[in-house]
């Protein structure tokens, strides 16, 4: 499921910040939408990520997961140029090459909670905006928490 923030998208379009070589050269960092992964009955959390044509972004740009764990990402490159993805995973990052109009998967494991970034380490894709975020929600296990009363959070 993907949500959109219409006002912000319109603002970015009006400003010429929603695609390549308008007011800027590339697509600014973090301007993608927010998506949510779905957890399967097997405990694996899955999400789809697309690279739209001439926009140099992952869509959604941010994917939220309910907690850390096993993840399967399906990438679609809808652009007419070749890109890739280097995705963090415990043990070693995973690499996938994505030629024009290709589809592939990445199986990774991430400890929650927190934000992990990934990117296309090809050409200057990262500089032009092809970065994304994987956000793990949830809490650490009880045995990892401090022996003290609950504390205030922001």
């Amino acid at each position, binding site marked *: 499921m993907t949500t959109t923030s219409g006002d912000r998208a319109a603002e970015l379009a009006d400003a010429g910040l929603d695609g390549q070589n308008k007011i800027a050269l590339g697509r600014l960092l973090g301007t993608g939408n927010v998506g949510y992964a779905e957890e399967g009955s097997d405990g694996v959390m899955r999400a789809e990520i697309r690279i739209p044509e001439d926009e140099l972004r992952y869509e959604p740009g941010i994917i939220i997961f309910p907690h850390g764990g096993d993840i399967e990402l399906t*990438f*679609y*490159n*809808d652009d007419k140029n070749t890109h890739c*993805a*280097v*995705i*963090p*995973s*415990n*043990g*070693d*990052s*995973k*690499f*996938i*090459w*994505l*030629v*024009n*109009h*290709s*589809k*592939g*998967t*990445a*199986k*990774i494991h*991430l*400890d*929650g*909670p*927190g*934000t*992990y*970034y*990934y*990117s296309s*380490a090809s050409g200057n894709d*990262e500089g032009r905006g092809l*970065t994304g975020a994987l956000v*793990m929600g949830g*809490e*650490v*296990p009880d*045995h*990892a*928490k*401090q*022996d*003290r*009363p609950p*504390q*205030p*959070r*922001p």
Partner: protein
Amino acid sequence: MTDYVDAGEAIPHAQLSAVKGSAPATGNVDYERIQNARSEPANWLTYYGTYDGQRHSELTQINKDTVRRLSPAWVFQAGAVGMQSGASTYSFEASPLVVEGVMYVSGPDGRAWAIDAKTGEELWRYKHASPYDVSLCCGNVNRGLAVGHGKVYMYTLNAHLIALDATTGEKVWDTVNGDVRAGESGSVAPLVVKDMVICGSAGGEFGLRGHIDAFDAQTGERRWRRYTVPKPGEPGSETWGDDAQEAWQRGGANCWVTPTYDPELELLFQGTGNPAPDFDGDVRPGDNLYTDSVVAIDVNTGEIRWHYQFTPHDLWDYDSTMENIVFEKDGRKYVSHADKNGYFFTLDAATGELVKVFPFVDRITWGEITPEGKVTPKVYPDEEGVPVHFWPGPAGGKEWTHMAYSRKTGLMYIPVQEVGATATRRRREFKESIPYWGAGVAVDIEDFYGFVAAVDPLTGEEKWRWRNEYPMCASTLSTAGGLVFQGTPTGEFVALDEETGEKLWSFQCGSGHHSSPSTYEVDGRQYIAVPTGWGGWIEGFLPGLLGAAAGDALFAFALPED
């Protein structure tokens, strides 16, 4: 509908490199072997080289006569792929371990490697993906690994203690040991003792309750945890006398530097961090035990046998996490500690009795400690919004980087920082994962210097000093070759004469030093290994070099083979 080309499944990034994927099996590193680490100087088996923390090697091939011919044998470039923290947080702080020709070392950003210690070839790599947004006061760093029982142990930025297979780098077990939502993190090099792995917490700037833990080395199951801030009813809790009875919950005293250990006494000597909030003492009246202390912990039970507090009711961010070196003289066993507060302490190792205290820096204005150990604060931020300047600054006369002790000269070789700071009290309410300082702090960007001091730990006499334009922010290494090695913030790696302080050799590494060099031997050739890569909490210990060249190289120096 688009007919997509099949891109397949993502592969491990290391598959696109020359990394071999495995390291030769080495002999078992167990408790008995680590206890006798000094007898096998070809290896550097544990964080300080030996349990006593002396950072002294018996190797002599590189010595006063030969050191002038020392040159790089190989260089390992850590590099980076993808987004990572910036120059102010990145630093290559590790202490390389070596077992029978295989080097195990960690770097920034959750990376660990097995490297051929003779050639620099990458044998295996491990990358722990920690969240990018973990709360870190002082850098995306790791101080090193522990090796033992066929495994390599690492404590990660998101507070996971992990065990890797020593031959493949594959993960064997993973124990979550801290709450990243509360601002807890991990940077310490673990320590193998008996059949356990010991590691302590980081995150004192975020109002945690510090602790040190022991885990089963084979399974990762926690054996014991010792909090270093007592809760009500526990010994020492009377020193946290706030009206709301809440200060202990956020008291700090984190254990983010590896303890030393004495096998005869079976005591761990753990330094503890500053109380939280760092500079606002009104919300935590009392001495605030066991912050800014050395606690002697029974390794079998986790019980505190004795403690000595260096800075009661700290108002200057004077953590005492740094090492407590164990040594013997005339049949008596001592621990020595150079504290952030600018004073050097020597204690009886069995009882914690104060034997000697003296200043080891030139400028101390925060307060005074008498030869009997009486502490009198003089200058501190006690009025809201009023700036106060004091020496040493929050990084201290010496921070976490370590001194070394020569068994031949009986001297401690201390890396000294002469930097002051101004703190202005600004009270704030506590919230998890938000910095809990209680002040705004600006460290001096001018008027600083540093030196390596050769000091007698029992008399306080300074035998010599090697002065440097910039403060010393890296660990010293002492060798039986009569040398003291020290890296400078501007990139020089220097060898000093242990008896005179004369500089005998130097090499410009291209980026500043903020790590712990070690030495080892392979096939009869002695090497000195030092990670370089300037960064970390520069704004705290030397903001005058915030713009200096960054780096991420590990140098191995040796004499020419012919």
